[in-house]
Protein backbone atom coordinates (compact mmCIF):
# COMPACT_ATOMS: atom_id res chain seq x y z
CA UNK A 1 0.00 0.00 0.00
CA UNK A 2 1.48 3.36 -0.98
CA UNK A 3 1.46 6.54 1.06
CA UNK A 4 -1.12 8.80 -0.56
CA UNK A 5 -0.72 12.56 -0.65
CA UNK A 6 -3.86 14.31 -1.88
CA UNK A 7 -3.16 17.93 -2.82
CA UNK A 8 -6.24 20.14 -2.58
CA UNK A 9 -7.21 23.49 -1.18
CA UNK A 10 -10.39 24.93 -2.59
CA UNK A 11 -9.14 27.92 -4.52
CA UNK A 12 -7.99 27.72 -8.12
CA UNK A 13 -4.61 29.06 -9.10
CA UNK A 14 -2.93 28.67 -5.71
CA UNK A 15 -0.43 26.20 -7.17
CA UNK A 16 -1.86 22.77 -6.40
CA UNK A 17 -0.55 21.22 -9.64
CA UNK A 18 2.76 23.02 -9.32
CA UNK A 19 3.26 21.78 -5.77
CA UNK A 20 2.08 18.26 -6.70
CA UNK A 21 4.52 18.02 -9.63
CA UNK A 22 7.38 19.46 -7.57
CA UNK A 23 6.78 17.15 -4.61
CA UNK A 24 6.53 14.17 -6.95
CA UNK A 25 9.81 15.06 -8.65
CA UNK A 26 11.61 15.67 -5.36
CA UNK A 27 10.38 12.43 -3.80
CA UNK A 28 11.42 10.48 -6.91
CA UNK A 29 14.83 12.18 -6.95
CA UNK A 30 15.37 11.02 -3.37
CA UNK A 31 14.91 7.42 -4.50
CA UNK A 32 11.21 6.72 -4.04
CA UNK A 33 8.90 5.22 -6.60
CA UNK A 34 6.27 7.87 -7.14
CA UNK A 35 3.05 8.06 -9.13
CA UNK A 36 1.45 11.41 -9.87
CA UNK A 37 -2.26 11.10 -10.54
CA UNK A 38 -3.98 13.98 -12.26
CA UNK A 39 -7.42 14.04 -10.67
CA UNK A 40 -8.22 17.57 -11.70
CA UNK A 41 -10.72 15.89 -13.97
CA UNK A 42 -11.76 18.12 -16.81
CA UNK A 43 -8.96 20.62 -16.23
CA UNK A 44 -5.87 18.47 -16.17
CA UNK A 45 -2.47 19.86 -16.98
CA UNK A 46 0.00 17.97 -14.86
CA UNK A 47 1.42 16.42 -18.04
CA UNK A 48 2.25 19.88 -19.40
CA UNK A 49 4.08 20.85 -16.22
CA UNK A 50 6.15 17.70 -16.69
CA UNK A 51 6.87 18.49 -20.33
CA UNK A 52 4.75 15.68 -21.76
CA UNK A 53 2.69 16.97 -24.66
CA UNK A 54 0.37 14.04 -25.11
CA UNK A 55 0.69 11.10 -22.71
CA UNK A 56 0.57 7.76 -24.51
CA UNK A 57 -1.81 6.34 -21.96
CA UNK A 58 -4.04 7.60 -19.17
CA UNK A 59 -6.99 7.30 -16.87
CA UNK A 60 -9.45 6.98 -19.77
CA UNK A 61 -8.18 3.48 -20.60
CA UNK A 62 -8.75 2.40 -17.02
CA UNK A 63 -12.22 3.96 -16.76
CA UNK A 64 -13.20 2.50 -20.15
CA UNK A 65 -12.16 -0.91 -18.85
CA UNK A 66 -9.67 -1.27 -21.71
CA UNK A 67 -7.01 -1.78 -19.09
CA UNK A 68 -7.73 -3.59 -15.85
CA UNK A 69 -4.79 -2.48 -13.75
CA UNK A 70 -4.46 1.22 -12.97
CA UNK A 71 -0.68 1.01 -12.95
CA UNK A 72 -0.69 -0.08 -16.59
CA UNK A 73 -1.96 3.31 -17.71
CA UNK A 74 0.91 5.17 -16.01
CA UNK A 75 3.51 6.72 -18.30
CA UNK A 76 7.12 7.30 -17.31
CA UNK A 77 8.45 10.86 -17.06
CA UNK A 78 11.98 12.10 -17.69
CA UNK A 79 12.66 11.71 -13.97
CA UNK A 80 13.52 8.16 -13.06
CA UNK A 81 11.08 6.71 -10.56
CA UNK A 82 8.37 9.22 -11.38
CA UNK A 83 5.32 8.03 -13.33
CA UNK A 84 2.26 9.99 -14.39
CA UNK A 85 -1.32 8.86 -14.61
CA UNK A 86 -2.90 11.56 -16.71
CA UNK A 87 -6.53 12.39 -17.28
CA UNK A 88 -6.01 14.71 -20.24
CA UNK A 89 -7.47 12.30 -22.80
CA UNK A 90 -10.55 11.57 -20.78
CA UNK A 91 -13.94 12.30 -22.26
CA UNK A 92 -15.26 15.83 -21.94
CA UNK A 93 -17.88 14.71 -19.38
CA UNK A 94 -15.20 13.19 -17.13
CA UNK A 95 -15.60 15.93 -14.52
CA UNK A 96 -18.88 14.27 -13.52
CA UNK A 97 -17.43 10.88 -12.67
CA UNK A 98 -20.00 8.22 -11.75
CA UNK A 99 -20.10 7.02 -8.19
CA UNK A 100 -19.13 3.45 -9.05
CA UNK A 101 -16.23 4.64 -11.17
CA UNK A 102 -15.03 6.85 -8.37
CA UNK A 103 -15.09 3.99 -5.84
CA UNK A 104 -13.26 1.75 -8.29
CA UNK A 105 -10.65 4.43 -8.90
CA UNK A 106 -10.06 5.10 -5.20
CA UNK A 107 -9.64 1.39 -4.57
CA UNK A 108 -7.16 1.09 -7.44
CA UNK A 109 -5.21 4.12 -6.19
CA UNK A 110 -4.86 2.53 -2.77
CA UNK A 111 -3.33 -0.54 -4.39
CA UNK A 112 -0.87 1.18 -6.71
CA UNK A 113 2.56 -0.44 -6.42
CA UNK A 114 4.48 2.74 -5.48
CA UNK A 115 6.03 4.22 -2.37
CA UNK A 116 4.14 7.46 -2.80
CA UNK A 117 1.07 8.41 -4.79
CA UNK A 118 0.39 12.12 -5.20
CA UNK A 119 -3.13 13.15 -6.16
CA UNK A 120 -3.48 16.48 -7.89
CA UNK A 121 -7.03 17.64 -7.22
CA UNK A 122 -9.15 20.35 -8.77
CA UNK A 123 -10.43 23.52 -7.16
CA UNK A 124 -13.81 23.70 -5.50
CA UNK A 125 -15.62 21.38 -3.15
CA UNK A 126 -17.51 18.92 -5.34
CA UNK A 127 -18.03 15.39 -4.01
CA UNK A 128 -15.44 13.82 -6.30
CA UNK A 129 -12.72 16.15 -5.13
CA UNK A 130 -13.71 15.67 -1.48
CA UNK A 131 -13.77 11.89 -1.79
CA UNK A 132 -10.36 11.74 -3.43
CA UNK A 133 -9.03 14.05 -0.75
CA UNK A 134 -10.32 11.86 2.06
CA UNK A 135 -9.12 8.65 0.41
CA UNK A 136 -5.91 9.00 2.41
CA UNK A 137 -5.07 9.50 6.07
CA UNK A 138 -3.43 12.83 5.37
CA UNK A 139 -4.46 15.65 3.10
CA UNK A 140 -2.47 18.64 1.96
CA UNK A 141 -4.36 21.93 1.69
CA UNK A 142 -2.53 24.54 -0.36
CA UNK A 143 -3.27 28.15 0.29
CA UNK A 144 -1.68 31.47 -0.62
CA UNK A 145 -1.41 34.35 1.85
CA UNK A 146 -4.47 36.16 0.53
CA UNK A 147 -7.97 36.49 1.96
CA UNK A 148 -9.50 34.94 -1.16
CA UNK A 149 -7.42 31.78 -0.80
CA UNK A 150 -7.92 31.64 2.96
CA UNK A 151 -11.67 32.01 2.53
CA UNK A 152 -11.81 29.12 0.04
CA UNK A 153 -9.47 27.03 2.17
CA UNK A 154 -11.80 27.36 5.18
CA UNK A 155 -14.73 26.41 2.99
CA UNK A 156 -12.83 23.44 1.67
CA UNK A 157 -11.95 22.30 5.20
CA UNK A 158 -15.59 22.59 6.28
CA UNK A 159 -16.71 20.62 3.24
CA UNK A 160 -14.12 17.90 3.85
CA UNK A 161 -15.19 17.61 7.48
CA UNK A 162 -18.85 17.41 6.64
CA UNK A 163 -18.18 14.75 4.02
CA UNK A 164 -16.03 12.74 6.39
CA UNK A 165 -18.56 12.94 9.21
CA UNK A 166 -21.29 11.69 6.92
CA UNK A 167 -19.11 8.79 5.77
CA UNK A 168 -18.15 7.91 9.33
CA UNK A 169 -21.74 7.97 10.55
CA UNK A 170 -23.10 6.18 7.51
CA UNK A 171 -20.68 3.27 7.57
CA UNK A 172 -19.98 3.09 11.31
CA UNK A 173 -21.90 1.04 13.91
CA UNK A 174 -23.81 4.05 15.22
CA UNK A 175 -27.34 3.87 16.60
CA UNK A 176 -30.20 4.25 14.12
CA UNK A 177 -31.34 7.49 15.76
CA UNK A 178 -27.91 8.97 15.18
CA UNK A 179 -27.97 7.94 11.56
CA UNK A 180 -31.48 9.13 10.86
CA UNK A 181 -30.89 12.52 12.50
CA UNK A 182 -27.47 13.22 11.04
CA UNK A 183 -27.93 11.78 7.59
CA UNK A 184 -31.19 13.59 6.99
CA UNK A 185 -30.71 15.29 3.69
CA UNK A 186 -32.48 18.41 4.88
CA UNK A 187 -29.67 18.90 7.39
CA UNK A 188 -27.09 20.18 4.94
CA UNK A 189 -23.47 20.26 6.05
CA UNK A 190 -22.43 18.51 9.24
CA UNK A 191 -20.29 20.07 11.90
CA UNK A 192 -18.20 18.14 14.36
CA UNK A 193 -19.75 19.82 17.40
CA UNK A 194 -23.29 18.94 16.26
CA UNK A 195 -22.26 15.39 15.49
CA UNK A 196 -20.71 14.99 18.91
CA UNK A 197 -23.86 16.34 20.52
CA UNK A 198 -26.07 13.95 18.62
CA UNK A 199 -23.92 10.91 19.34
CA UNK A 200 -23.72 11.95 22.98
CA UNK A 201 -27.51 12.05 23.16
CA UNK A 202 -28.39 8.81 21.39
CA UNK A 203 -25.28 6.67 21.50
CA UNK A 204 -22.91 8.04 24.15
CA UNK A 205 -20.92 4.82 24.29
CA UNK A 206 -19.67 5.37 20.78
CA UNK A 207 -18.33 8.88 21.42
CA UNK A 208 -14.74 7.63 21.73
CA UNK A 209 -15.11 5.77 18.44
CA UNK A 210 -16.37 8.90 16.71
CA UNK A 211 -13.45 10.88 18.06
CA UNK A 212 -10.95 8.24 17.01
CA UNK A 213 -12.38 7.97 13.52
CA UNK A 214 -12.59 11.71 13.08
CA UNK A 215 -9.02 12.27 14.32
CA UNK A 216 -7.76 9.63 11.89
CA UNK A 217 -7.41 12.23 9.19
CA UNK A 218 -4.77 14.92 9.35
CA UNK A 219 -4.76 18.19 7.44
CA UNK A 220 -1.43 19.59 6.35
CA UNK A 221 -1.48 23.31 5.64
CA UNK A 222 1.04 24.44 3.05
CA UNK A 223 1.41 28.10 2.20
CA UNK A 224 2.42 28.71 -1.38
CA UNK A 225 3.69 31.95 -2.93
CA UNK A 226 4.98 33.16 0.40
CA UNK A 227 6.29 36.71 -0.08
CA UNK A 228 8.78 38.63 1.92
CA UNK A 229 5.98 40.84 3.17
CA UNK A 230 3.95 37.83 4.38
CA UNK A 231 3.62 37.46 8.13
CA UNK A 232 6.21 34.74 8.82
CA UNK A 233 4.01 33.26 11.53
CA UNK A 234 0.92 32.99 9.31
CA UNK A 235 1.21 29.22 8.90
CA UNK A 236 1.51 28.60 12.63
CA UNK A 237 -1.38 30.93 13.31
CA UNK A 238 -3.53 29.10 10.78
CA UNK A 239 -2.58 25.79 12.32
CA UNK A 240 -3.59 27.07 15.74
CA UNK A 241 -6.85 28.62 14.63
CA UNK A 242 -7.84 25.49 12.70
CA UNK A 243 -7.06 23.18 15.58
CA UNK A 244 -9.01 25.45 17.86
CA UNK A 245 -12.13 25.86 15.75
CA UNK A 246 -12.30 22.74 13.59
CA UNK A 247 -11.40 20.19 16.28
CA UNK A 248 -9.34 17.86 14.12
CA UNK A 249 -5.59 17.53 13.71
CA UNK A 250 -4.11 20.32 11.59
CA UNK A 251 -0.49 20.86 10.98
CA UNK A 252 1.48 23.59 9.27
CA UNK A 253 3.81 21.64 7.00
CA UNK A 254 5.57 24.13 4.83
CA UNK A 255 5.91 27.56 3.39
CA UNK A 256 6.98 27.81 -0.24
CA UNK A 257 8.59 31.06 -1.25
CA UNK A 258 7.29 33.02 -4.19
CA UNK A 259 9.60 33.07 -7.18
CA UNK A 260 9.08 34.94 -10.46
CA UNK A 261 10.94 32.19 -12.30
CA UNK A 262 8.22 29.63 -11.65
CA UNK A 263 6.43 31.34 -14.51
CA UNK A 264 9.50 30.92 -16.73
CA UNK A 265 9.80 27.24 -15.85
CA UNK A 266 6.13 26.60 -16.65
CA UNK A 267 6.52 28.40 -19.98
CA UNK A 268 9.49 26.20 -20.82
CA UNK A 269 7.40 23.17 -19.73
CA UNK A 270 10.19 22.24 -17.36
CA UNK A 271 10.14 21.60 -13.66
CA UNK A 272 11.16 24.57 -11.55
CA UNK A 273 12.96 22.38 -9.01
CA UNK A 274 15.15 21.02 -11.80
CA UNK A 275 15.86 24.35 -13.47
CA UNK A 276 16.50 26.31 -10.28
CA UNK A 277 17.37 23.73 -7.63
CA UNK A 278 19.13 26.14 -5.28
CA UNK A 279 16.58 28.93 -5.09
CA UNK A 280 14.79 29.50 -1.82
CA UNK A 281 11.56 28.39 -3.47
CA UNK A 282 13.08 25.03 -4.46
CA UNK A 283 14.66 24.60 -1.05
CA UNK A 284 11.37 25.34 0.69
CA UNK A 285 9.70 22.75 -1.55
CA UNK A 286 12.32 20.22 -0.49
CA UNK A 287 11.68 21.08 3.12
CA UNK A 288 7.94 20.64 2.62
CA UNK A 289 8.47 17.24 0.96
CA UNK A 290 10.58 16.13 3.91
CA UNK A 291 7.97 17.31 6.41
CA UNK A 292 5.20 15.45 4.62
CA UNK A 293 7.23 12.25 4.33
CA UNK A 294 7.97 12.45 8.03
CA UNK A 295 4.30 12.45 9.01
CA UNK A 296 2.70 10.24 6.41
CA UNK A 297 3.46 6.55 6.15
CA UNK A 298 1.89 3.35 4.83
CA UNK A 299 1.09 2.45 8.46
CA UNK A 300 -1.13 5.52 9.00
CA UNK A 301 -2.64 4.81 5.60
CA UNK A 302 -3.50 1.24 6.50
CA UNK A 303 -5.04 2.22 9.82
CA UNK A 304 -7.13 4.85 8.14
CA UNK A 305 -8.23 2.43 5.47
CA UNK A 306 -9.25 -0.21 8.00
CA UNK A 307 -11.21 2.32 10.00
CA UNK A 308 -13.10 3.66 7.04
CA UNK A 309 -13.37 0.29 5.31
CA UNK A 310 -16.43 -0.06 3.17
CA UNK A 311 -16.48 3.50 1.98
Amino acid at each position, binding site marked *: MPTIYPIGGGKGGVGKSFVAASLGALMAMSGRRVALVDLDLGASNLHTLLGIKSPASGLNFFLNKDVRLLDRVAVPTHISGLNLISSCHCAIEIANLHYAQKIKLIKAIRNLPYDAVILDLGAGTNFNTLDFFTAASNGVAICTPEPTAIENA*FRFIKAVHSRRLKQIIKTGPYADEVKSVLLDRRNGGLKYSETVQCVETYDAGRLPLLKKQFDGFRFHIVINQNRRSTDPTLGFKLEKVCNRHFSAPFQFSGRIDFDERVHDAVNQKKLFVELFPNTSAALSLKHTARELIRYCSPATEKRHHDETAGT
Partner: protein
Amino acid sequence: MKPLEHKNYYEVLEVPTDASADEIKRAYHNALATYDDDSLVTYSLFSDEQRAEILRMIECAFNTLIDAEKRSQYNRKINDTSQAICEKTDGQDRVDADSVNQALNNSKADSLQAWVRTKSADEEIQAMVDKMLDEERICGKDLKNLRTALGVEIREIYETTRISPTVLTHIEEDRFEELPAEFYLRRFLRSYAELLQLEPQPIVDGYFKNMA
Protein backbone atom coordinates in the same frame (compact mmCIF):
# COMPACT_ATOMS: atom_id res chain seq x y z
CA MET B 1 -12.02 20.24 22.07
CA LYS B 2 -14.25 22.48 24.07
CA PRO B 3 -16.00 25.23 22.16
CA LEU B 4 -14.60 28.62 23.00
CA GLU B 5 -17.59 29.62 25.10
CA HIS B 6 -16.90 26.72 27.49
CA LYS B 7 -13.31 27.64 28.03
CA ASN B 8 -12.05 29.43 31.09
CA TYR B 9 -10.24 32.73 30.84
CA TYR B 10 -6.82 31.12 30.87
CA GLU B 11 -7.82 28.83 28.03
CA VAL B 12 -9.35 31.70 26.08
CA LEU B 13 -6.04 33.58 26.14
CA GLU B 14 -4.00 30.37 26.00
CA VAL B 15 -1.84 31.22 28.96
CA PRO B 16 -0.82 29.03 31.92
CA THR B 17 -2.65 29.69 35.18
CA ASP B 18 0.51 31.22 36.65
CA ALA B 19 1.07 33.56 33.70
CA SER B 20 2.70 36.90 34.48
CA ALA B 21 1.11 40.23 33.55
CA ASP B 22 3.50 40.51 30.60
CA GLU B 23 2.54 37.08 29.30
CA ILE B 24 -1.12 37.94 29.62
CA LYS B 25 -0.63 41.20 27.76
CA ARG B 26 1.25 39.48 24.97
CA ALA B 27 -1.34 36.71 24.73
CA TYR B 28 -4.05 39.34 24.59
CA HIS B 29 -2.36 41.20 21.75
CA ASN B 30 -1.85 37.91 19.89
CA ALA B 31 -5.48 36.98 20.36
CA LEU B 32 -6.61 40.36 19.05
CA ALA B 33 -4.29 40.00 16.06
CA THR B 34 -5.86 36.63 15.31
CA TYR B 35 -9.52 37.47 15.83
CA ASP B 36 -9.62 41.11 14.81
CA ASP B 37 -12.00 42.16 12.04
CA ASP B 38 -9.25 42.55 9.47
CA SER B 39 -7.16 39.55 10.46
CA LEU B 40 -6.05 37.39 7.53
CA VAL B 41 -5.79 34.26 9.67
CA THR B 42 -9.50 34.06 10.44
CA TYR B 43 -10.83 35.79 7.35
CA SER B 44 -14.40 34.58 6.62
CA LEU B 45 -14.20 31.96 9.37
CA PHE B 46 -16.84 33.55 11.60
CA SER B 47 -20.02 35.50 11.23
CA ASP B 48 -19.98 39.06 12.58
CA GLU B 49 -21.87 37.93 15.68
CA GLN B 50 -19.50 35.04 16.34
CA ARG B 51 -16.52 37.30 15.95
CA ALA B 52 -18.00 39.91 18.28
CA GLU B 53 -18.68 37.18 20.83
CA ILE B 54 -15.12 35.88 20.62
CA LEU B 55 -13.70 39.38 20.96
CA ARG B 56 -15.98 39.95 23.93
CA MET B 57 -14.65 36.85 25.63
CA ILE B 58 -11.06 37.85 24.95
CA GLU B 59 -11.83 41.25 26.44
CA CYS B 60 -13.48 39.68 29.49
CA ALA B 61 -10.58 37.31 29.99
CA PHE B 62 -8.00 40.07 29.69
CA ASN B 63 -9.79 42.52 31.97
CA THR B 64 -10.11 39.89 34.65
CA LEU B 65 -6.66 38.34 34.48
CA ILE B 66 -4.74 41.60 34.25
CA ASP B 67 -6.33 42.93 37.42
CA ALA B 68 -4.74 41.25 40.43
CA GLU B 69 -7.84 41.50 42.57
CA LYS B 70 -10.33 40.34 39.96
CA ARG B 71 -7.95 37.57 39.03
CA SER B 72 -7.67 36.15 42.51
CA GLN B 73 -11.46 36.33 42.86
CA TYR B 74 -11.78 34.50 39.59
CA ASN B 75 -9.25 31.89 40.65
CA ARG B 76 -11.29 31.26 43.79
CA LYS B 77 -14.36 30.87 41.64
CA ILE B 78 -12.57 28.32 39.47
CA ASN B 79 -11.50 26.36 42.49
CA ASP B 80 -14.96 26.47 44.04
CA THR B 81 -16.90 25.35 41.04
CA SER B 82 -13.98 23.47 39.51
CA GLN B 83 -15.27 24.72 36.20
CA ALA B 84 -14.46 28.20 35.26
CA ILE B 85 -16.60 29.20 32.40
CA CYS B 86 -16.73 32.47 30.62
CA GLU B 87 -20.35 32.91 31.59
CA LYS B 88 -22.61 34.43 29.05
CA THR B 89 -25.27 35.38 31.53
CA ASP B 90 -23.13 36.56 34.41
CA GLY B 91 -24.49 40.04 35.02
CA GLN B 92 -21.21 41.53 36.09
CA ASP B 93 -19.11 40.29 33.23
CA ARG B 94 -21.80 40.89 30.71
CA VAL B 95 -20.59 43.18 27.96
CA ASP B 96 -22.59 43.28 24.80
CA ALA B 97 -21.00 43.17 21.40
CA ASP B 98 -21.20 46.90 20.80
CA SER B 99 -19.35 47.84 23.89
CA VAL B 100 -16.44 45.61 22.93
CA ASN B 101 -15.13 48.19 20.55
CA GLN B 102 -15.78 50.92 23.04
CA ALA B 103 -13.86 49.05 25.68
CA LEU B 104 -11.05 48.73 23.17
CA ASN B 105 -11.02 52.45 22.67
CA ASN B 106 -11.55 53.57 26.21
CA SER B 107 -9.01 51.80 28.25
CA LYS B 108 -5.38 52.41 27.58
CA ALA B 109 -4.25 49.24 29.19
CA ASP B 110 -6.46 47.31 26.80
CA SER B 111 -4.83 48.11 23.58
CA LEU B 112 -2.12 50.57 22.81
CA GLN B 113 -3.15 51.02 19.22
CA ALA B 114 -6.78 51.66 20.00
CA TRP B 115 -5.63 54.14 22.62
CA VAL B 116 -3.41 56.02 20.19
CA ARG B 117 -6.15 56.01 17.60
CA THR B 118 -8.61 57.67 19.95
CA LYS B 119 -6.04 60.03 21.33
CA SER B 120 -4.79 61.23 17.95
CA ALA B 121 -8.27 62.46 17.06
CA ASP B 122 -7.64 65.13 19.70
CA GLU B 123 -7.37 68.63 18.24
CA GLU B 124 -4.24 69.48 20.17
CA ILE B 125 -2.52 66.35 18.95
CA GLN B 126 -3.71 67.01 15.41
CA ALA B 127 -2.18 70.47 15.53
CA MET B 128 1.09 69.02 16.82
CA VAL B 129 1.24 66.48 14.03
CA ASP B 130 0.42 69.05 11.37
CA LYS B 131 3.10 71.35 12.67
CA MET B 132 5.67 68.59 12.69
CA LEU B 133 4.82 67.48 9.17
CA ASP B 134 5.00 71.08 7.90
CA GLU B 135 8.66 71.24 8.80
CA GLU B 136 11.10 69.82 6.33
CA ARG B 137 13.20 68.25 9.03
CA ILE B 138 11.97 66.14 11.88
CA CYS B 139 14.14 65.68 14.93
CA GLY B 140 13.93 63.16 17.73
CA LYS B 141 12.56 65.75 20.07
CA ASP B 142 9.49 66.24 17.84
CA LEU B 143 8.80 62.53 18.03
CA LYS B 144 9.33 62.44 21.74
CA ASN B 145 7.01 65.39 22.32
CA LEU B 146 4.27 63.77 20.31
CA ARG B 147 4.77 60.47 22.08
CA THR B 148 4.54 62.05 25.52
CA ALA B 149 1.53 64.10 24.48
CA LEU B 150 -0.13 60.84 23.46
CA GLY B 151 0.78 59.39 26.83
CA VAL B 152 2.70 56.49 25.37
CA GLU B 153 5.78 55.18 27.14
CA ILE B 154 8.97 53.91 25.51
CA ARG B 155 8.43 50.59 27.21
CA GLU B 156 5.04 50.23 25.53
CA ILE B 157 6.54 50.90 22.12
CA TYR B 158 9.11 48.25 22.85
CA GLU B 159 6.42 45.76 23.87
CA THR B 160 4.61 46.12 20.57
CA THR B 161 7.45 46.70 18.12
CA ARG B 162 10.29 44.91 19.94
CA ILE B 163 12.61 47.80 19.13
CA SER B 164 14.97 48.01 22.06
CA PRO B 165 14.28 50.87 24.50
CA THR B 166 17.90 52.01 24.19
CA VAL B 167 17.59 52.42 20.44
CA LEU B 168 14.27 54.20 20.87
CA THR B 169 15.91 56.60 23.29
CA HIS B 170 18.80 57.20 20.89
CA ILE B 171 16.32 57.99 18.14
CA GLU B 172 14.45 60.45 20.30
CA GLU B 173 17.63 62.12 21.50
CA ASP B 174 19.15 62.40 18.02
CA ARG B 175 22.27 60.50 19.05
CA PHE B 176 23.10 59.77 15.45
CA GLU B 177 26.42 58.08 16.11
CA GLU B 178 24.65 55.47 18.25
CA LEU B 179 21.91 54.69 15.73
CA PRO B 180 21.75 51.38 13.86
CA ALA B 181 22.45 50.97 10.13
CA GLU B 182 20.23 52.86 7.73
CA PHE B 183 18.18 49.84 6.72
CA TYR B 184 17.20 49.09 10.31
CA LEU B 185 16.74 52.71 11.25
CA ARG B 186 14.25 53.13 8.41
CA ARG B 187 12.26 50.15 9.58
CA PHE B 188 12.35 51.29 13.20
CA LEU B 189 11.17 54.79 12.31
CA ARG B 190 8.46 53.27 10.20
CA SER B 191 7.14 51.07 13.04
CA TYR B 192 7.42 53.95 15.48
CA ALA B 193 5.43 56.21 13.16
CA GLU B 194 2.81 53.57 12.48
CA LEU B 195 2.33 52.96 16.16
CA LEU B 196 1.71 56.67 16.71
CA GLN B 197 -0.76 56.68 13.80
CA LEU B 198 1.50 58.78 11.60
CA GLU B 199 2.11 58.43 7.88
CA PRO B 200 5.48 56.60 7.98
CA GLN B 201 7.18 57.92 4.84
CA PRO B 202 7.24 61.67 5.68
CA ILE B 203 8.54 60.81 9.16
CA VAL B 204 11.37 58.66 7.82
CA ASP B 205 12.27 61.25 5.17
CA GLY B 206 12.12 64.15 7.62
CA TYR B 207 14.27 62.34 10.16
CA PHE B 208 16.90 61.44 7.59
CA LYS B 209 16.96 64.99 6.27
CA ASN B 210 17.62 66.26 9.76
CA MET B 211 20.41 63.74 10.18
CA ALA B 212 22.14 64.69 6.93
